[in-house]
């Protein structure tokens, strides 16, 4: 694909896809039932499609390795790319609702895999509506990290129910996260930051990380620096609002 000079969507110099061919609106309607395939259950997720080097054949007998990090609304994939080399043995996936953007991330990963043999084999992307189908992809307690970076604020009060962090959806996220796993959220919209923090605080299965724990976690710094959105906020001198919580067992 890199050899094909006629393919303008890839940059000739880096081989990476050019963003301007994958432009999409920032907003996508999470309520619409788009036309993409959903795995019937987590057992139906095709690991050999996403991680061919780890799973050469579709019928994987070794199911000990499972996806552990999920970037919800991964956008153009900035965070995943940084995490991939930081945690080379961990399988991670990005979930994105927008078609074109998912295509961009796919191309980016493929290009990186080609340019860096042996690397980036642990990262992939899938186009899906994570607000409806998270339990279809992940088993109970499968994930150890979940990311919600700069989610759509849905400013109008009547649209608050479309927010990706809500007291109801946290039930599902708590289900797929193992006890001790961490959920990372960040936004540049203060009201949304308050909203997410309140939802997490009030949920019986999450507790806040202490400031020492935040300092010690290498991933926390990536939240504002690794993504295109985060870099834009930094460029504009904006403030970010973080809420990082740990999944705990519910008290009886």
């Amino acid at each position, binding site marked *: 694909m890199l050899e094909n000079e006629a393919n303008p969507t890839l940059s000739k110099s880096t081989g990476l896809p050019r963003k301007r061919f994958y*432009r999409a609106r920032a907003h996508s309607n999470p309520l619409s039932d788009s036309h993409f395939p959903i795995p019937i259950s987590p057992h139906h997720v095709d690991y050999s499609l996403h991680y061919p080097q780890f799973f050469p054949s579709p019928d994987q007998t070794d199911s000990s390795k499972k996806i552990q990090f999920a970037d919800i609304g991964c956008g153009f994939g900035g965070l995943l790319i940084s995490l991939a080399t930081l945690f080379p043995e961990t399988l991670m996936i990005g979930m994105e609702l927008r078609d074109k953007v998912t295509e961009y991330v796919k191309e980016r990963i493929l290009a990186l895999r080609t340019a860096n043999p042996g690397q980036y084999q642990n990262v992939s992307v899938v186009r899906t509506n994570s*607000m409806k189908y998270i*339990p279809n992809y992940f088993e109970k307690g499968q994930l150890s990290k979940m990311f919600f970076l700069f989610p759509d604020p849905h400013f109008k009060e009547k649209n608050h129910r479309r927010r990706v962090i809500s007291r*109801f*959806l946290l039930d*599902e996220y708590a289900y797929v996260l193992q006890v001790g796993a961490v959920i990372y959220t960040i936004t540049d919209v203060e009201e949304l930051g308050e909203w997410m923090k309140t939802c997490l605080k009030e949920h019986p299965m999450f507790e806040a990380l202490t400031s020492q724990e935040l300092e010690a976690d290498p991933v926390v710094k990536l939240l504002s620096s690794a993504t295109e959105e985060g870099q834009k906020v930094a460029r504009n001198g904006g403030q970010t609002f973080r809420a990082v919580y740990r999944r705990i067992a*519910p008290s009886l």
Partner: protein
Amino acid sequence: MEDTPMEFGESNKDTEIAPALIAVHPTQESVAAAVGPDLRIFDLRQNSAVSLKDDSSVGSLHKDSIRVVRYGANGKLLVSAGDDKLVKVWSTESWHCITTVCSEKRVSAVAISNDGLYVCFADKFGVVWIVDLDRPDGQVHVGKKAVPLLSHYCSIITSLEFSPDGKFILSADRDFKIRATVFPKNPLDGAHEIQSFCLGHTEFVSCLAFLWTEEYPQGFVVSGSGDSTVRLWDILSGSLLDACEVGEKAGLLGSNGREAECYSAVTDLCSNPDGSLVAVALQSFQGIILLKCNLSTQTLSLAKVVSIGGGTFIPTSLQMCSSTGLLWMVTGVSNLRGSECPSLARVRVISGVNKSNSDSDTREHQELEDNEIPGGTSLLKNLQGSLSYGEEVFLAAAEALKTAMSNLLVKKQYSTEKRDFRKRTRNDKKIKQRK
């Protein structure tokens, strides 16, 4: 109003057709049937029709189609709810309406906790609400406010069930999912701990029933779906234990190649508690399918295919009374357009469904004659509204119901051109976007 042409005979929301429903008191003290907004109850102890008393300010009785009617496990309560966005809880002693709860959206499913303390109802937006009932003291309470318990994001909830031990609440939706959630000590704070998801159906899940014995107190769940199967699940782990292709068994799987059609969805199912018999109603099938469930081998198998009423009875709702071993069924509809009788119902009963021996005799499952049914013709007259209808009307009703169910629960698959056309004619879409 839409510019796009109406497809699949989409009907105006105000006069949507609704299937007739039936519910039986746990010890068969009374039988309730709902046809449209009419809630008809026959008291089998007094052998007379019940007149419901409702003094609430919200207005007596229901104003629009009732979509769910059920008795609580202890027999003291009956709840009815539906398109008028009201949930009414009735006392089965005094037949007074104990409380009326207002829902924001039309109600699609209801469950009463086994101890009779809580009523949960689900709306078409996927939220399950809970309201607590005070200790029953026969007094009328001012309309109570429900609080959200849990939610299936943007998915119509089709069925709600409490597990027999009261530890879990199950919710099934049109996105093929069944969710088992721990029912907490303080449910008014929400039910946040999900026990499992039972995933495996390939179409909307339409109904749920629990099976349990002393040997297996946590119980198992059977579910019916638009994919024409009945599946058996272990809710603790969410694993699929067995599946039975009832559509195929009834000889109904169409080879007509019309993909958009939802063929032979399971519309309702019920079981006797030990699971020895599961009765299944299918769209377009004039009778019921009886399945056997073996809890030790955790398998489902076909017990018998029973045709009913000389071949024109397609049940719209079923309920078993385990104490009497009777399977009560109703077929019927309200708001049937283009018909002289827009509202009709017929009740039928099959006996012998509490027998749990594996080799079922043909004479054991008997369809009862009208005069053999408890309550006899008085009950039939009350619940049906009339003693006889033309047969063809019921078949037309069944077809209309099938279309309505499909419109509601089956995701429409549009061709790419149609999808683009729909996007273009959306009135809220901005033409130009720059980022």
